[in-house]
């Protein structure tokens, strides 16, 4: 029983003193509760997209040796509010030659595509709007709805740059669906289910129970999926549809005011969604270390709520960490060329992800779960993950140290200025 039915039944029992199984209005109460949940998810997107845009600008600033927005409110935390209100009140232009219905509808379609994905995201042990048994398929399908919106925006704007942007994004999304679907197929193979909650339940709280550390092929599949997801979300280095240097602003070039805000919004929501998918499919989702999901489901009252909140927090932390990685990638890598983009997809990501599916299948047949070989494999993969983290930390330290000497010679000051020190 998911949390929506739970809440609805609770309401029916306590407020209407009826038995939810036989009461005729159960469906109505459930619909209302679903509506409220949808509104909460909507508010979550809004509230998430705003501060994250501020955080991204601050991080981008520090990466580029500048500061980023720090004047609006304390340290600029209200920057997103100013941007939002301003865009909202700006004139909403529709070009005279535009295809009016398409132009007007496109942002909402994009937004719907992004927003629909929230339905199946498993936020916590019982916190999921709808635990579809074809969750992953639904995710893949609904996020590709975005491409229709982008094409509509590109076509409806009646501007050549917008059209280029729309067509590029269509090509890109359709191509990158393939490797991302193959990578998720590895997950589905291991979990044995398409349901998102089922995938999380097939993993565990400890890192060695996560799918990413299950075997080397899953490890690679995670990175393949992440790359493909960045490309699907039109993020740098794959943001060809909005490449300023080539096609000005891409598909959203003719949009102003609120409609443009919807595109921005969808972009931020999309980052969050792809981070969330990676988190629940590969990184154990909301699983709390040491507690089995059945134990959580068996609790009652406030204890239940407490466990839910904890699992929710764990999921958010994992997803937010991945959002930071996406942001850092954006400010690290230069944009690809169109042909390079397609080569990356069809010549590298697609064959490699197929290979990963094969590898996972072979290992599934050869290495029984829970056996000695499986334990060794998982231990080795966790070790590999730790090694990657450690090596990158050492590299960061080395890069920093070299420049610290030079900086002190030139400026007479220390270079050290940790990110929590806000200028």
């Amino acid at each position: 029983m998911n949390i929506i039915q739970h809440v609805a039944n609770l309401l029916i029992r306590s407020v209407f003193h009826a038995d939810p199984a036989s009461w005729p209005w159960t469906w109505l109460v459930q619909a209302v509760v679903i509506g409220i949940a949808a509104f909460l998810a909507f508010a979550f997107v809004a509230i998430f997209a705003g501060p994250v845009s501020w955080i991204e600008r601050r991080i981008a600033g520090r990466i580029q040796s500048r500061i980023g927005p720090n004047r609006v409110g304390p340290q600029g935390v209200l920057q997103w509010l100013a941007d939002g209100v301003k865009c909202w009140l700006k004139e909403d232009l529709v070009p005279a030659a535009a295809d009016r219905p398409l132009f007007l509808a496109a942002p909402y379609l994009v937004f719907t595509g992004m927003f629909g994905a929230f339905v199946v995201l498993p936020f916590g042990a019982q916190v999921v709007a709808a635990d579809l048994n074809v969750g992953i398929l639904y995710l893949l399908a609904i996020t590709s709805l975005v491409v229709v919106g982008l094409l509509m925006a590109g076509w409806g704007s009646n501007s050549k740059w917008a059209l280029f942007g729309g067509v590029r994004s269509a090509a890109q999304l359709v191509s990158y669906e393939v490797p991302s679907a193959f990578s998720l197929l590895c997950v589905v193979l291991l979990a044995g289910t398409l349901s998102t909650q089922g995938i999380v339940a097939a993993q565990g709280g400890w890192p060695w129970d996560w799918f990413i550390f299950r075997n080397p092929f899953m490890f690679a599949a995670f990175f393949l999926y992440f790359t493909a997801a960045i490309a699907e979300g039109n993020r740098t280095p794959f943001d060809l549809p909005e490449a300023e240097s080539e096609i000005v602003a891409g598909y959203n070039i003719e949009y102003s005011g609120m409609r443009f805000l919807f595109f921005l919004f969808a972009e931020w929501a999309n980052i969050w969604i792809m981070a969330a998918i990676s988190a629940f499919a590969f990184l154990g989702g909301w699983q709390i270390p040491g507690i089995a999901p059945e134990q959580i489901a068996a609790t009652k009252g406030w204890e239940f709520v407490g466990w839910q909140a904890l699992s929710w927090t764990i999921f958010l932390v994992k997803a937010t960490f991945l959002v930071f990685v996406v942001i850092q990638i954006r400010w690290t890598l230069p944009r690809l060329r169109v042909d390079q983009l397609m080569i990356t997809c069809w010549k590298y990501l697609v064959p490699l992800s197929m290979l990963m599916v094969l590898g996972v299948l072979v290992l599934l047949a050869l290495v029984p779960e829970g056996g000695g070989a499986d334990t060794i494999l998982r231990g080795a993969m966790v070790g590999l993950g730790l090694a990657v983290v450690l090596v990158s930390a050492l590299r960061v330290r080395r890069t920093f140290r070299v420049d610290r000497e030079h900086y002190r010679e030139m400026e007479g000051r220390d270079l050290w200025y940790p990110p929590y020190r806000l200028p």
Partner: protein
Amino acid sequence: MTDTPAGRDPTAQAPLCPTGGDSAPLVVTTRIDDLVNWSRENSIWYLLFATACCGIELMQTGGPRTDLDRFGAVFRSSPRQSDLLIVAGTITYKMADRVRLIYAQMAEPRYVMAMGSCANCGGLFQQSYSVVPGVDAIVPVDIYLPGCPPRPEALNEAILRVQDLMKSEHWASRRQGRGNP
């Protein structure tokens, strides 16, 4: 324009309220004008429009040393989404049509800044047969910024002055817009 010889007319330029650079007022007052102006002045998206040497300085102002992003001012590459058109550089007669077009494509409320001598009055190319003597002949200019080129801090100061300008406006009246030249 001045009847006194005392330099600039002191009344022509309202005294500036000193909020531009400090952390902006947190108190969201009940007055809608305040909220609207607050959001507007803290989110000046300027158009990347550079035609000559001033453009280099414009880019530099967005760079690390004079980080315009501190004030929420970021560049947009599409005129539809920008609030401020910074005319950075020499405008030839051939370009003048484009400047007008770009201005017409911007969504209200829109502001124009003439950056550098060329945009102010043609600058050192004033006598040329092909250079527009001042961009205010083709689009209405809100802020003039002297310099050839102005240093990044000067542009930053001009942005703060655009903020002051926005602060003194009424949302309802500005909403109507100024029409296209």
